[in-house]
């Protein structure tokens, strides 16, 4: 079965307005903060990576019909099942029936502040020289890989310029597939509006758009 992301929305025609929101309006139902906290706490156990989480969310078949915290909830249930942390009967009944599986870590209240302040940096030492340099013209890969990826569809097969180098970062595509970190050089690549959206350039268009692209996404132009 081919991998399909339902979350890759950039450039899609969407006639709906963006609805601004006051600062402090963080949640819209009392269950939403619980889902946020559960997602963070379970993420901290190390049973799965952030890239697994994104893959679990973006492949939900009803992604477009869910609110964002509903997406997080459905993905958390799914990851909890797939990791073996819970089984379907337990989930249905909201009751522990099987022994817990071993978890690498547990986020205790006493360590919350320190764990948040530390975060999860993804920069890794370079094991090979970077292939591209700032100012270089590159072309992004045109194919749609059959797995989680972070090159948006609108930026595939496009010519751009390397604008920044960010060092070597954990490669999302590899980690989401359970293939380990496979760190790769990461670049900011910038594209003109006409390259992305064609001519004529609409008056509402950007001057340029950039994505952050790992080296395997790029070829010399």
């Amino acid at each position, binding site marked *: 079965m081919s991998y399909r992301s339902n979350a890759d929305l950039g450039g899609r025609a969407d006639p709906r307005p*963006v609805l601004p929101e006051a600062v402090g309006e963080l949640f819209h139902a009392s269950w939403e903060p619980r889902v946020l906290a559960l997602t963070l706490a379970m993420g901290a156990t190390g049973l799965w990576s952030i890239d697994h989480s994104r893959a679990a969310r973006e492949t939900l078949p009803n992604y477009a019909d869910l609110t964002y915290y509903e997406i997080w909830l459905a993905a958390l249930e799914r990851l909890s099942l797939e990791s073996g942390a819970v089984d379907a009967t337990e989930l249905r009944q909201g009751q522990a029936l099987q022994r817990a599986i071993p978890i690498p870590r547990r986020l205790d209240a006493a360590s919350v502040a320190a764990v948040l302040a530390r975060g999860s940096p993804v920069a890794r030492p370079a094991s090979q020289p970077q292939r591209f340099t700032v100012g270089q013209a590159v072309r992004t890969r045109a194919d749609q890989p059959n797995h989680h990826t972070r090159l948006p569809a609108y930026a595939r097969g496009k010519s751009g310029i390397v604008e920044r180098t960010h060092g070597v970062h954990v490669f999302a595509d590899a980690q989401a597939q359970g293939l380990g970190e496979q760190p790769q050089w990461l670049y900011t690549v910038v594209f003109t509006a006409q390259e992305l959206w064609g001519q004529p350039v609409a008056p509402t268009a950007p001057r340029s758009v950039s994505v952050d692209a790992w080296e395997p996404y790029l070829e010399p132009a």
Partner: protein
Amino acid sequence: MADHDTHPEHDHLHDHERSELSPLELRVRALETLLTDKGYVDPAALDLLIDTYQTKIGPRNGARVVARAWRNPEFRRWLLQDATAAIASLGFSGRQGEHMVAVENTPEVHNLVVCTLCSCYPWAVLGLPPTWYKSAPYRSRAVREPRSVLQDFGVSLPESVGIRVWDSTAEVRYLVIPRRPDGSAHLGEADLANLVTRDSMIGTGLALPPGSGV
């Protein structure tokens, strides 16, 4: 259960309680009970996580960074050069802010940040993303027609200003440094920070004129 007093929702619900809860509420409670009872999560940690993002980590963090950059040319240079370190010097670091880049608005360029693939956002300086940032219309339209998106926020920029959109597709998180408002030369850092709105640090707003602070 040790947390009985503070978390009655973890215990089994009476029928009349259950009937008052929405299906989503019930589903979340079931999951929370299960994950807690299995020992995977510490209920006190959940409360602390929520409290942290409701009261401690929010856009006032970013506003302090911007105000410092407006006032202090050396800090501004550092912020543009190595945002992660410069921001950490003010005590803001960590989750969803591990790899920060600050981008500065100028008379020629207005920066706008989006995550078209999910909801990547610089939590360490702005807190949790607003609903619209995660919404399909914003993620769809920001890269293609940012000027009409800005209109939804009541922002209209001259044609001479080009819009640069940053799609946060990896773990780098972007903070926009809005233009310092006219008439703010006399203000100190705390007063300047009051002019820096959350939206101005995403690029969907501008800093407020002096006298209209947040």
